[in-house]
């Protein structure tokens, strides 16, 4: 099981802040994860519609979409940041 966490409008559109999920072995990178989640329903498809905009963090560090997710304990998906 992998813990997924969502923030801002990604969280709002998916309709939850976090979940534990069993990822198929074919999901090797952050990009694979986005593609897989989009198959789980309309909410996911809407939230992750513009894939390139979605930022991914593994174990609380930013990663590129093509980086392997390997043994990630926690994967976060969120929009571009607007703090400060």
């Amino acid at each position, binding site marked *: 099981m992998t813990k997924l966490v969502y*923030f*801002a409008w990604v969280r709002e559109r998916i309709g939850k802040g976090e979940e534990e999920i069993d990822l198929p072995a074919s999901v090797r990178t952050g990009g694979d994860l986005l593609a897989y989640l989009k198959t789980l329903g309309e909410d996911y498809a809407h939230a992750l519609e513009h894939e390139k905009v979605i930022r991914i963090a593994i174990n609380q560090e930013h990663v590129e979409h093509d980086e392997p997710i390997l043994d990630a304990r926690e994967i976060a998906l969120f929009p571009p*940041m607007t703090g400060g």
Partner: protein
Amino acid sequence: MTGDVPVVVRVQTEDFDAAAEAARLAAGRRDAGAVVTFTGLCRDEGGRLSALELEHYPGMAEAEIGRICRKAVERFSLLGITAIHRVGKIAPGENIVLVIALAPHRHAAFDGASFVMDFLKTSAPFWKKEHFADGSEGGWVDAKESDDRAREAWS
């Protein structure tokens, strides 16, 4: 070596006291010639806005600001740095973020504080939602390209 340099990072709902933080950072130092304090405030955008609501990624927000601060300490040979970011609902005129950089000379202190803000804006996991003065809930603030350019100017 950033090991001995004080790096203070906090994410909190309550307000901060910029003067007290600066005093704490510079206390007892006789090698510091410059303190630059940046305070980010909530604007009302010409009366349109009643509040900003700040969401963050607990754990990663602190970790990422810490990484940015340590990079700044290394790059500008800072003597100390403090970064505090508020979350929750913030009204116009209120504080959002505080960055204080301590250095022997002024340009390092200015660059250090400015560098931390430019990276904090674009890589620390915080998101702003607008609440409008007419009572309606606005949308999520869009990231600005000008902020990406500001960050890239440091590389």
